[in-house]
């Protein structure tokens, strides 16, 4: 049984992984380009992409493969606190998919990833006074703090479980029971996503 738990199984499907790393790129890109209007077109394109990625993630959370589904990782606050406590005091509770604290970070990041670009869009169109710009900035900072917490969680979780969680998000493989492996990786859908994002950039960068 112990031996079985150490099996490397496919946990993250391709769309989930492509979503994650495109989001990383666009999140970093939007922060790097936030300082100057010189890069406003790239900044706005990053915002469109983040919004589109989050809409996709909402759908994939309902219809995706096992560990990508909200039902498999969204738990109450008590579960998140309990997990963090188990990390700090040991023995660290191991989850094949997202742990309950990570689930909260994901849910909040999806919300921020939808709202922040909307306020950016309002600012970009000069529809209101200053409050849209200020709200956009405040939300972006909240998002950054959340990303920081997420990274901290990944580092602590990786150490506690002796499992490189960032590498797992790249390869798709994590330690788990063979019965928890996902049967399909949906590579074709990831390809569709990449083409879609490419088209989005082609459209948003052409003026």
């Amino acid at each position, binding site marked *: 049984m112990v031996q079985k738990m150490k099996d490397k199984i496919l946990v993250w499907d391709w769309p989930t992984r492509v979503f994650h790393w495109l989001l990383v790129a666009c999140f970093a890109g939007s922060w790097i380009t936030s300082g100057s209007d*010189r890069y*406003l077109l790239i900044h706005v394109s990053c915002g469109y992409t983040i919004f589109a990625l989050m809409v996709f993630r909402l759908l994939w959370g309902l219809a995706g493969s096992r560990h990508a589904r909200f039902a498999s990782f969204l738990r109450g606050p008590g579960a998140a606190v309990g997990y963090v406590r188990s990390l700090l005091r040991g023995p660290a509770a191991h989850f094949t998919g997202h742990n309950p604290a990570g689930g909260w970070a994901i849910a909040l990041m999806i919300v921020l990833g939808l709202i922040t670009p909307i306020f950016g869009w309002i600012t970009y169109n000069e529809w209101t006074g200053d409050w849209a710009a200020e709200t956009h900035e405040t939300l972006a900072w909240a998002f950054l703090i959340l990303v920081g917490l997420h990274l901290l969680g990944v580092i602590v979780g990786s150490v506690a479980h002796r499992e490189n969680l960032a590498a797992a998000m790249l390869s798709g493989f994590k330690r788990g029971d063979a019965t928890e492996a996902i049967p399909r990786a949906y590579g074709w859908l990831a390809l569709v996503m990449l083409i879609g994002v490419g088209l989005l950039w082609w459209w948003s960068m052409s003026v």
Partner: protein
Amino acid sequence: MKKLLIALSLAGLCGLAVAETPQQILSGLQAEAKQADPSFAGFSADRGKEFYNTKHGKEWACASCHTTDPTKEGKHAATGRAIKPIAPSANAERFTDPEKVARLYKRMCGEVLGRECTVQEKGDFLTYLLSVK
């Protein structure tokens, strides 16, 4: 629907409470300049015009996006998007929201000069914009 209307009118009232006229914002800059320098000799529309049309060591002048005529609609130099006129005579919304003015001075001075503007520069700039009809 009624609640929405109440909320909207409240938001409108809050907006009105902080609104100022461009002249009031200019007076504020004047007071600030006098306080910083007792020998302050006033703002100049000519200096503002020069400032508006000149590059300041970076890629863009104010006019790069707002065009050489501040009463005309501008065009963003990077995105190509239309920018509402910057002169209050052509766009009554300009220089009426002190917070927006402060934020845009900070952001745009960074864009054009790579630093914050002096009070003299801000005042000259606004004096010029108020002079064009």
